[in-house]
């Protein structure tokens, strides 16, 4: 079980959080002209990197804030956690 430092609440057990997937995805703007391929990439395609990865977590049993975590997917080492605007 991971130990995750919520940027708002501090160190908490993984049990309090929900995983939110790749944290580097940007949603296309509303009303943006966009090709089918680009849209499908956004909706469906995710990388499954080995090593460092920026991902989203949601502190659902805490402050209910979404934030970003830089984690190594092989060792689970967490390098930093930060607010989405950082």
């Amino acid at each position, binding site marked *: 079980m991971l*130990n995750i430092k919520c940027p708002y609440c501090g160190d908490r057990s993984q049990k309090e959080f929900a995983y939110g997937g790749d944290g580097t995805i940007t949603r296309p703007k509303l009303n943006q002209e966009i090709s089918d391929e680009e849209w499908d990439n956004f909706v469906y395609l995710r990388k499954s990197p080995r090593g460092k990865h920026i991902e989203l977590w949601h502190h*659902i049993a805490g402050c209910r804030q979404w934030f970003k975590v830089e984690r190594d997917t092989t*060792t689970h080492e*967490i390098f930093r956690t930060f607010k*989405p605007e950082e």
Partner: protein
Amino acid sequence: MSQNFRLNTGGLINRDKPIEFKFNGKKYIGYEGDTLASALLANGIHLIGRSFKYHRPRGFFGAGVDEPNAKMQVEINGCSEPNINATEIELVDGLSASSQNCWPSVNFDIGAINNFLNRFFPAGFYYKTFMWPKSFWYRVYEPFIRKAAGLGIASLEKDKERYEHKYEYCDLLVTGSGPAGLASAYAAAKNGAKIILAEDKPRYGGTLLTDDVTIDNLSGKDWSEKIISELKEMPNVIVKNRSQVFGYYDHNMMVMFERTGDHLEKKPKYTPRQRLWYIRAKEVLLSTGSIERPIVFGNNDTPGVFLSAAAKEYMKVYGVLIGKKPIIFTNNDSGYETAIEFKKNGVNPIVLDTREDQNSELINEAKDLDIKIKFSYAVIVAHGYKKVKSATIGKLDKDKIDFENTEQIDCDSICVSGFWTPTVHLASQSGNKLKFNDSIDAFVPDKSKQNEHSLGAANGTFTLQDTLKNSFNTGSEVSKSITKKDEKIQIPNTNERKYSAHDKFWCSPLPKGKNYKRFVDFQNDVAVSDIEVALREGYRSIEHVKRYTTLGMATDQGRTSNLNGLQLVANVEKKIVPQVGHTTFRPPFTPVTIGTIVGREIGKEYMPTRKTPMHHWHEKNNAVWVDAGAWKRPRYYKRGNENLFEASKREAKNVRDHVGICDVTTLGKIDIKGPDSAEFLNRVYTNAWLKLPVGKARYGVMLREDGIVMDDGTTTRISENHYHMTTTTAQAANVLSHLEYYLQIVWPELNVNVVSTTEQWAGAAIAGPKSRDLLAKLFPKIDVSNEALPFMGYIEGDLFGVKARIFRISFSGELAYEINVESDFGLFMWEKIIEIGEEFNIQPYGTEALSTLRIEMGHVAGPELDGRTIPYDVSLEGLVSKKKDFIGKRSLVKEAFNKADRQKIVGLVPLDRKSSIPEGSHLVENKNAKLPNPKLGHVSSSCWSVENNNPFSLAILKDGKNMIGKKLFAVSPLKNTSIEVEVMSSHYVDHEGKRVRS
């Protein structure tokens, strides 16, 4: 025979308290402080089980977690539990244990025929034998393997015991209370660190209880008692015995298994049997000690063969002799400690040392005691079937690959010592890549991945002096960095005997022409020859050899077999052990009961039960419950002998004819505030939201980005910048997370806040033609006419002094309202409505009637919004705005979503107007078509239409738009039904929606 092998004095047992117990149906006596193993050995019982594959007789081999053989079926409080190590279970009054893997009895075991057929049971036997024919798998092979491979028998009874989970945080977790654990815990405790010290055994002290040493002029036992009692007095220290740390997980999450109840004769009420601890430790100090390595020789699995340290432990801790005519077979000085202990207790051992004659403190002491020692000697084979009777021993030649001469000597036991293997399981689990230490022929921890340090024997340090010095220092250093305190501690003086170098000899060679079975892994019945076969057949990777031969698997996890197995592979492959590598050590280190892992999360405690404020009213009025997520909702209110069908029909009919009341508190409710709320809703929902006036509700549909319908519900504009959203009960949590994601991550520029208010508001729906009359009586000061409060209108009112929100929304298709009050007034509201509604024939209705009402109206719900449907499929395409963008819109242009024959919701009625159509039925054109019969759709929801008095169903059907009027078959292989149905509109009742607007 009563305790003939119990010494007259000595041991740490309580001789004043005899304890009666049963083994294989026979009564025996032991003492308080015994383990089941020591008590049986005191009674001279050695034959305790049959081996896994060959059903060979097996006896005790170790004295603790090192024991590979003594797995027992134990009866505890009427529950039968398999695979319990007899060396770890404490004797309590009434304990009843029996042998496993033998039939009809341990003395006469039919399966032992396998032993004589053993050339048919080579390595990889299961893989080779059970390959074909395929059809034999489930009929012949699988039942056979299950029967033959089983250890104990799992109980079919419900476990009546109580198990608990506990969470702890500490600065340092110290695993093991031997010298390393005590010293490091003590030093860290003095620095004020928060410490948990865990000891697997009931007694603290580890090897200090059995080694002949002094610390500060105290015996090892006295010193450990002194340290433990000091630690127990310190408020920053938790000291736990009977507690095995068995798993090392990410971010220093340690999991520990505490045996809290089994050793108690009378367990106080609510004391759990076992407890699972989740411990998050800043630093972990692994003082797990080491386990003695066997030396492999012929028939080395015969009962009466022991690890030499175990034999010593039985004497020193339990006052039990494992034999009266022992051979000590050793490659190092440890065997001499056991020999000396035997001698002190009046038994004359003979020592076979594989090394040449030499001097050391221990050897000289043994010589002075006139202990018979044969240097350069080894045991070749043990004789005796159910117990060792004699052994053939031999003088090793110079290269130790053959014997110069052999002789047979009488003995009743053989104690082996092949030097020591650090217990590195937890270190390895932590991600520590181990390194091979040549001087001790074993793996030791290398660089740490997590915050852990191995100390003492677990780190390959085998002298007490070095262990104490390193442990005091490490405990001090590690805690200092956390607490910033530096309490100086005097490292105590020690007195111990110096060892001479050990010999790398680990396996007796086979004399020419002899083919004795030499076991490497007792628990899995893996002999030297099995591993050789695997290698001959081309298995190279140690992980493959492990799986092919089962070496080091199961509950034992290779505690005694691991290194000898690696040594053998290295020898055959002409490599050295570090080139062979080692297999992965996996948690749990020792077996853990399923009950402990489950803890209290069982039955109704599996998850929290959510109850609405009106729960007790429902209960009093004969509600029959249905689970809606964690919520309890009334499915129907039983009157007299009614069944579900009759009751729900009555309740639904009463809504259509008069008025009904339904508890809708469980609907998800989300409060939305902020100047950009309208814009936000406009992006979240498929329809237009910018122009919704204050005091109006609107039905909305939200999609996922892939175009699939996520949820539906109404949202009401309470005031200019304040909205009240409702979601389905099931999706409430997901919708909130979804909204938060878009507000916090995607569109942070929107000034909107959302918060769940599901539990803050109690909700009651009143539905039926009489609902307006009722509402008028509930709120006499409010104009509730159709003009003042039209369909989708919202108004606030005063319900006998309680502030209420009134929404004119309908799920049943009838004229209906939803009233919300603060939860604390929910019951008051409910009772008032029931009281005043009496004159209108009000009846409560449950979820079953609710479903009936919505199905015959063609309103979609969970079964239709099943994560596979787009708005068109459920006929909600009219709510999809063409003008604005919203979440998921871009996906709706997909080719598959716009095919002419795209699936669509339809209604179904059985041609006979009688047969109910099972939900989940598949729709096919021809019920007799050849398989696979093409599926055209599926039945999503079924009800008995109270309006038309016949069954009616909703279905998602391919090309549904053009199928109206067609006849199909709804087939359910599960229910074995095949019903001819007519396809019709999904709106079976009031398809113009007049009632809700009237």
